[in-house]
């Protein structure tokens, strides 16, 4: 997926919105910037399918050799799928963060807001500021 077409949360998650039979599905992952900042990843704890999450709620953990970091849900909804292949192939998070490195698919709660999400350019700016 082209990152320029994605939405981003300030906490470094990306979101891709699609519609499927009137349901709005958000595919969520973490940005290339975040993966690089985390350094060597050793473990991911995926959320449970069926779990209801609020916006900004921690729903996944990634562990690197340095720290454990929360992954926050950028949307409110229900987890309908998780990327089961990730725990055994953590390198996918860095080799293809916006594609095969997706973490979860979340079916949005009706009327759940997407307004706070950043577009790619604004997110890039935030990353540049953080990098300094």
């Amino acid at each position, binding site marked *: 997926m082209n990152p320029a077409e994605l939405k981003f949360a300030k906490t470094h998650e990306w979101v891709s919105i699609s519609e499927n039979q009137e349901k709005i599905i958000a595919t969520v992952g973490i940005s290339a910037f975040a993966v690089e900042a985390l350094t060597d990843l050793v*473990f991911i704890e995926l959320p*449970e399918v069926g779990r209801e999450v609020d916006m900004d709620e921690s729903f996944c*953990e990634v*562990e690197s*050799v*340095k*720290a*454990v970091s929360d992954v926050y849900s950028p949307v409110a909804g229900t987890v309908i799928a998780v990327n089961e292949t990730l725990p055994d192939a953590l390198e996918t998070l860095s080799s293809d963060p916006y594609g095969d490195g997706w973490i979860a698919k979340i079916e949005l709660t009706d009327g759940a807001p997407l307004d706070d999400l950043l577009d790619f350019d604004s997110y890039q700016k935030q990353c540049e500021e953080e990098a300094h």
Partner: protein
Amino acid sequence: MTFFYNTPENQQAMLEAIGARSLDELFEPIPEELKLQHPLQLPPALSELELDQHLRELAVGNQHAGQKICFLGGGCYDHFIPAAVDTIGSRSEFYTSYTPYQAEVSQGNLQVIFEYQSLMTRLTGLDISNASLYDGGSATAEAVLMAIADTRRYGKVVVPETLHPEYRQTIATYVENLGVAVETVATPSGLLQPDDLSAHVDDQTACVVLQQPNFFGCLEDASSVVQTTHQAGALLVGVFDPISLGLLARPGDWSAPGEGADIAVAEGHTLGTPMSYGGPFLGIMCCRENLVRRMPGRIVGQTVDRRGKPCYVLTLQTREQHIRREKATSNVCTNQGLFALRATAHLSLFGPQGLRETANLCLQKSRYAADQICQHQRFELAFPEPTFKEFVIRDRKANVGELMETSLAAGYLAGIPLAPWYPERADCFLVAVTEKRTKAEIDGLVDALIGATNAVTTSIS
């Protein structure tokens, strides 16, 4: 380290340094009602000589297993310890090194822990062992926490009444503030019955904890418990007796080879550490590989250094302290290094054949003891089930307290009354017979118990 006196001058200097005029001023923020308004109620200080005499007087009141003939069990047993275990365990390189904070400098310590772990995985039939925990009870509770975290089932944990009552209390303490219920399955037959277990296990059950042999010494139908537990998607925590594994199936193989307990824990003092009035002890913990990231404590791994020589490193050890921090699911960051060393020496000396012989002696001698005690009409086995080294005797006269006292006077620690934990079994006591007990000692116990019987009969008539 330099010793600092706490003189009035030192106190004054410290107060000045922080800008307080007096201790009272320093403690002013503490509300008056919380301050102790009188001196601590302690007797006057003793001189070193007086203190030495006083402590000796107190110590004489203790009676250790070496002074009496010991049939006590219930998690703490009088097993034989070869002198070589003391010799190795007393070497100052091991004895004084405590826990390696700069771990990789202490290659010898790490190698011992690695060998301990290797022995434990072979003993249990599971993939991974940690470097040990504090004791059997806390290891069991830590295993329950692992199961809750792994299954993400916060509904309940299921324990049969046949699990050590103090282990059940420890579990209850550990999960008290997690909102997880501890459901206890009644076991009137002395065994966990498959149907009773099925009625308690559901899709909110994180784990079932099964002790084999159980607290009453009886052998549970571990295979059916494994299946019922796994069918419900729960994990099985197996509590085992290391010595029993000379004869019984390994926890990892309870149902079939490679199929059994997911986490196995044990009180490991029986491998080379004396009873010591009940501790400190050794907590053994092993698990399947998929649970390794949930495992508390530290794990030592073998690797090669830059010259290609074998060396040892701490693996995953830093996770709870340095990486998971507030997300940690356990606060255990250490191990019982000295007792793990003793267990390693002990098992290395025994080998598989020695462990089998020891277990067989326990079995044969305990069977002989049970038969001899039950020769007398006053006594019967509380449960007809097969046992290993412990069994429960029912006193038809329901006077266990007096039996224990009379036996003690005759030089025998005859057993553990069940009354404190099982009020409905106040007429029962638990007897443990290890390989150390001789035929003469067992016969002496029987005489002491029957002597008590005769004494009671006389006093009644």
